[in-house]
């Protein structure tokens, strides 16, 4: 096992009566990596992370947290996990500061460190100015941010976020996503479950597409897209494009086709990010006038559709 792996989940299985909620889920997360479990409701995301967090006894498989086996009765591995449940898990009659202090004490944080860390987290989640108000008086977005703050209070090696933006307004949602990006940039490993394709694409270094308790495919967004053979589409609005320019574009590596139509060129390419500068250089060398460029990449929604035969929100 690589030392860089914070989490290694292998062949996780869980059944509830006759319902096989999770059937052999395997994935790992490395330091500083954000791993997404993308799937519709009922796919097995929450059950999987409940086993990873030591909330739920697994029927089979293994979970290693920083090399230590995680079970429902493990104490050491739990110290390394920060859980942000899907449902708000805060005490509405307590203030944000009191909520943070209480959960910090459960993680045996020394008093002085806890006091300091509570202030830091309140700043991170943007609740410093409302820290001493009862959380029942907060907006939904503020409660969500407090929910996340509690999870990261004790500086866990792995932050587990279970659909943290469900039911949140766009502004708060963006703030939450920015917080996750910030934490990831600081080196925290993040396990993020969502059924929002855009969130998985924005946040996650790697994504596991999960459905009916199984991971159907896993990899970076690019790897997943390539897995199903889809390509990027570059649209360039340009005038004065000679045929020679079109030929030069077709000769670029990674370009499958170039289709001129009504002042617009459509290029089907394997990697728009890598090819776009080259395409612009070719057009420039032929004195073509470019007025607009857009890139349409195949998204995870399409990948999910391809893998499961249904849409994410089905």
């Amino acid at each position, binding site marked *: 096992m690589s030392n860089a792996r914070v989490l290694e989940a292998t062949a996780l299985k869980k059944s509830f009566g006759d319902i096989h909620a999770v059937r052999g889920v395997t994935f790992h997360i490395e330091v500083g990596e954000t791993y997404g479990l993308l799937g519709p409701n009922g796919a097995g995301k929450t059950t999987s992370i*409940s086993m990873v*967090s*030591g*909330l*739920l006894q697994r029927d089979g498989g293994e979970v290693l947290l920083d090399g230590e086996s995680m079970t*429902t*009765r*493990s*104490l*050491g591995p*739990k*110290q390394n*996990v920060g*859980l942000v*449940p899907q*449902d*708000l*898990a*805060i*005490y509405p*009659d*307590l203030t944000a500061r*009191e909520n943070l202090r*209480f*959960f910090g*004490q*459960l*993680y*045996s944080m020394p008093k002085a460190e806890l006091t300091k860390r509570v202030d830091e987290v309140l700043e991170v989640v943007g609740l410093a100015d409302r820290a001493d108000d009862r959380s029942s008086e907060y907006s939904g977005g503020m409660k969500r941010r407090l929910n996340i703050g*509690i999870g990261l209070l004790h500086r866990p090696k792995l932050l587990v976020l279970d659909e943290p933006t469900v039911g949140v307004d766009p502004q708060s949602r963006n703030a939450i996503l920015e917080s996750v990006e910030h934490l990831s940039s600081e080196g925290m490993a993040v396990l993020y479950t969502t059924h929002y394709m855009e969130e998985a694409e924005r946040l996650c270094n790697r994504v596991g597409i999960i459905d009916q308790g199984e991971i159907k495919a896993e990899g970076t967004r690019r790897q997943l897209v390539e897995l199903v053979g889809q390509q990027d589409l570059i649209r360039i609005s340009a005038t004065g494009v000679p045929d020679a320019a079109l030929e030069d574009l077709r000769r670029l590596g990674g370009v499958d086709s170039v289709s001129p139509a009504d002042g617009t060129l459509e290029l089907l390419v394997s990697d728009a990010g890598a090819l776009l500068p080259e395409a612009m250089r070719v057009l420039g060398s032929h004195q073509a006038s470019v007025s607009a460029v857009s890139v349409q990449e195949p998204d995870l929604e399409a990948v999910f559709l391809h893998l499961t035969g249904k849409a994410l929100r089905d």
Partner: protein
Amino acid sequence: MRHAWTIAKNDLSLRARDRSIYIIGLVAPLALAFIFNAVFGGGISDVGETITFEVGIANVDQGPIGAAFEDVIDSIASDGLLEVTTFDSAQAARSAADDGTVGAAFILPEGLSDAVLGGADATIEVVGNVDAPTTTQVASSISEQFGIGVRTANLSVATAMASGALSPEEAFAAAGEAGTADPAIEVGSVEAASRQLDSAAYFVAGLSIFFLFFIAGMSITSMLEERREGTLSRLLAAPIKRQSIVAGKSLASILIGLASMTVLVIVSSLIMGADWGPPVGVAMLIVGAVLAVTALMIAVGSFAKTPEQAGNLQSIVAVTLGMLGGTFVPIAQEGFLAKLSLITPNAWFIRGLGDLTGGGISAALPAVFVLLAIALVAGSIGLIIAGRSLRL
């Protein structure tokens, strides 16, 4: 233990903000105790006070048996247990019983002595007022016991005559003497037993332990509420033992229960003049009661899946044990109900307090031990079940 204390502190903080705890723990038991004491106090069991039953007697017999009965009644009246009014006729006695002038009336019919001494059946009639069932019961018991005494004497005389030891004349005289001899009945003192609480302490004790059930019930309902509110997942995900969660919740209930009972004892002493007995003994009984009731409520509540289910189960148990244990009305000292009441911590708590006031701390120790035993057994069962059911 540190984490259990952290959870207990958090629970205490939350419950302090939920003001209903003050109502359940202090206001309700005290207010009800005031009311109960005002309504029932003094008529049931005041130490040193004697209950007096008002009876009437119409002795139309005028023979030795009637005279003997009057002597018996006078003897009991001289102990202050009866207040006797004499009537000239059976009708006057009946009327007095009907209109409530007396609680019950004895009517000794004409020819009673002749019938009894002649070996025939005879009856002492007891007429009771419908609103004085206890007096009527006491009057019936007295006449019944007197009847037994007379029958015994008659049997002895008849046996002596059959053996030739007595002539008919001697037998008649002997029978008359038997009727006027010391009464065959022993009416026990109805004075309240020396080992019994005064009414104020009795009602505060009963009601405080009754409401203690609801305070103790919060330990489990709080856990079930945490499951519903989602915070239980955070507790389970934290690096703490699961037993710490149950222990922390229980500890909070125990502390609130102890505080509630202590305040009630002090307040009732100061305001209602309740006499609780030696403070150390009272403290021991309170600790035993709080532990026993908390353990019982954990055991009962651990079978529930939702806070509502737990609340319903616990209410049923609290009311049932409260009734059986004498929370609302005193349970008879003997009989099936008295035995049944001993399965309740309520009865042991009240009995322990009574023993404490009458016999000191050592007299209350059996009750303390029983309460602790209930706590141990119910607590063990409850913690195992609650621990196992502690999941999302």
